[in-house]
């Protein structure tokens, strides 16, 4: 795809584990271990996985808030992986982030208007009357009243606070907004408001979202394509409808089967996986999922499956899907 806005290739982020008096390195956390994907203009890519799978580290690495250990990040075709702080600055305008906790990500001593206007001031894009007018417009866009600009974050509810964070992200007219669990801290009725707002804004402005969440239903609702992560790697990536209709990786199948369906007549919960996610410090050899997989074979312990095309851009990293004659493993 030439129209890719963001291209991530073989991204890795390893953290050293130090212990003892001399702080010697005793291990490595493989937070992100070779992740590649691309994101088109105006597209939403959902990134799902359980805690510790590395989805947030991917998000932060893309924005260079975390320095990747290796790999390449291209924004609009330009490699931004190694740009210096100054050289990166113009690119920062086109990438913004919305965090999970709207309580922790707003400065409690700044008025909501100042919070939203700050990016414009920092980049020297507006001041005085014009700044005020632009902030007021941003407030209206996210469904807040301009007369609330003088209020402090504590005077807003959780949902309104998340709207302030979204307005701040919109201020610089970015082309990419990374949303890291933006609705996880919100009540169900408020969650729907914020999801609708994000969808509406994308339709108006045409920017892309890298949307990170652990809630499959939320991801399914907002994304065009979905990538499933497990222990630092993408195990499956496909168009939203295809992924949910025809999940090919046993982990994706287990995830989907674990979601409680809001219908008492639907199939009852059937946990398809036992045990916990292994530690990313010593991830299992071969396929990292083999310790919990219903279909694990001898080969899975030793061979690491690569992400392979299974048709129609549906990519899976599973030895059952490697074209050796075994079709996909359905439950």
């Amino acid at each position, binding site marked *: 795809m030439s129209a890719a806005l963001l291209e991530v290739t073989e991204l890795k982020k390893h953290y050293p584990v130090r212990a003892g008096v001399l702080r010697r390195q005793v291990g490595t956390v493989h937070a992100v271990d070779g992740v590649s994907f691309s994101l088109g203009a105006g597209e939403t890519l959902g990134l799902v996985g359980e805690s510790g799978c590395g989805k947030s580290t991917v998000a932060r690495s893309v924005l260079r808030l975390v320095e990747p250990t290796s790999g390449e990040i291209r924004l609009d075709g330009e490699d931004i992986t190694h740009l210096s702080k100054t050289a990166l600055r113009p690119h920062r305008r086109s990438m913004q982030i919305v965090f999970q906790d709207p309580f922790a990500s707003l400065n409690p001593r700044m008025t909501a208007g100042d919070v939203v206007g700050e990016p414009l001031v920092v980049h020297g894009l507006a001041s005085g009357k014009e700044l005020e007018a632009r902030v007021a417009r941003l407030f209206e866009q996210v469904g807040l009243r301009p007369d609330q600009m003088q209020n402090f974050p504590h005077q807003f509810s959780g949902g309104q606070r998340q709207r302030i964070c979204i307005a701040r992200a919109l201020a610089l007219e970015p082309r990419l907004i990374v949303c890291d669990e933006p609705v996880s801290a919100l009540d169900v*009725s408020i969650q729907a*408001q914020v999801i609708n707002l994000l969808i509406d804004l994308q339709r108006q402005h045409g920017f892309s979202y890298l949307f990170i969440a652990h809630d499959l239903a939320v991801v399914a609702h907002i994304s065009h394509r979905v990538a499933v992560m497990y222990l630092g790697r993408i195990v499956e990536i496909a168009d939203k409808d295809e992924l949910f209709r025809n999940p090919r990786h046993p982990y994706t199948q287990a995830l989907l089967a674990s979601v409680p369906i809001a219908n008492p007549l639907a199939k009852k919960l059937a946990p398809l996986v036992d045990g916990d996610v292994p530690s990313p410090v010593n991830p299992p050899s071969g396929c990292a999922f083999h310790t919990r997989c219903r279909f694990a074979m001898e080969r899975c312990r030793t061979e690491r499956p690569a992400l392979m095309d299974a048709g129609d851009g549906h990519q899976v990293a599973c030895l059952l899907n490697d074209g050796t004659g075994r079709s996909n493993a359905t439950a």
Partner: protein
Amino acid sequence: MAQKSDIVLEVKNLKTVFFTNSGLFKAVDDVSFTVKRGETLAIVGESGCGKSVTALSLMRLVPDPPGRIVGGSVTLEGTDLLALDETEMRAVRGNRISMIFQEPMTSLNPVMRIGDQIVEAVRLHRNISSKEAQNIAVEMLRLVRIPEPARRAREYPHQLSGGMRQRAMIAMALACRPALLIADEPTTALDVTIQAQILALILDLQKELGTGLVLITHDLGVVAQTAQRVIVMYAGRKVEEASVEALFAAPKHPYTRGLMASIPAVPASGVPAQARLNEIPGTVPSLVRLPKGCAFAPRCKLAIKRCEAEYPPLADWGGGHLAACWRAEEVAEVA
């Protein structure tokens, strides 16, 4: 109808208030329900609706001050818990009625071995030797399917994963075979695959032991998959109660209906990409300044003059389906 003796818990007109600087909060306002042996009752609602305070009131664990139970009765196996003094209550708590919380790490003692914590709970209520209690502890850990229970019993909470800790909590709560278990968002802090395991475990054990279960959650999916009866709370009040089938088939209260429409579903095939979710406008009202009439009226599409003036009574719509709405009849038509 069930036999009277089948009823484990009967809550009548429970009222719990909080006295704060900004005024009087009616956290739980006139809430009644019953739980039968082996039955699961879900209490569902958003933050601040009073579901957790209801649970704490049943356990008599509401912090006083600032909170106080000011009315109603909580009858567990024929005994009114609200009439007991603290010593008597202590003999019941953890014995006949016990509770598991959302965050297992904050409810386990970090400097005490898992097994010893269960032993402590058991020996508080039963006159048995420490050796026997040890055996019960290991047996309970086996029951909640913790691998190598004897070894795990000697470990500290930080050595267990989140899912294992929640299993240990469940083991502790069930060690004395209580008549009623209260689970307050037991899986909210857990990943979805672990959540499925823990929910399945709770339901299995409940069936095995015949425990009554009050499950507090904000997740309608969890409700649909686990409960037999459901209470929906809004701003401290019970606004709807029904069997889980009736509630999901035809919710009578506009709030319940709104909640159901606002949750995104994992798509079965054919769901159009990015369909808008139905949102409930506005936010949950502050409990200090509740409107005179129906607390949901300011957010309700169906609200009429009467809703703002008078609080609607809980009316029975057949088969024990209760709803507090002046326009419950029209809810189904208006969507």
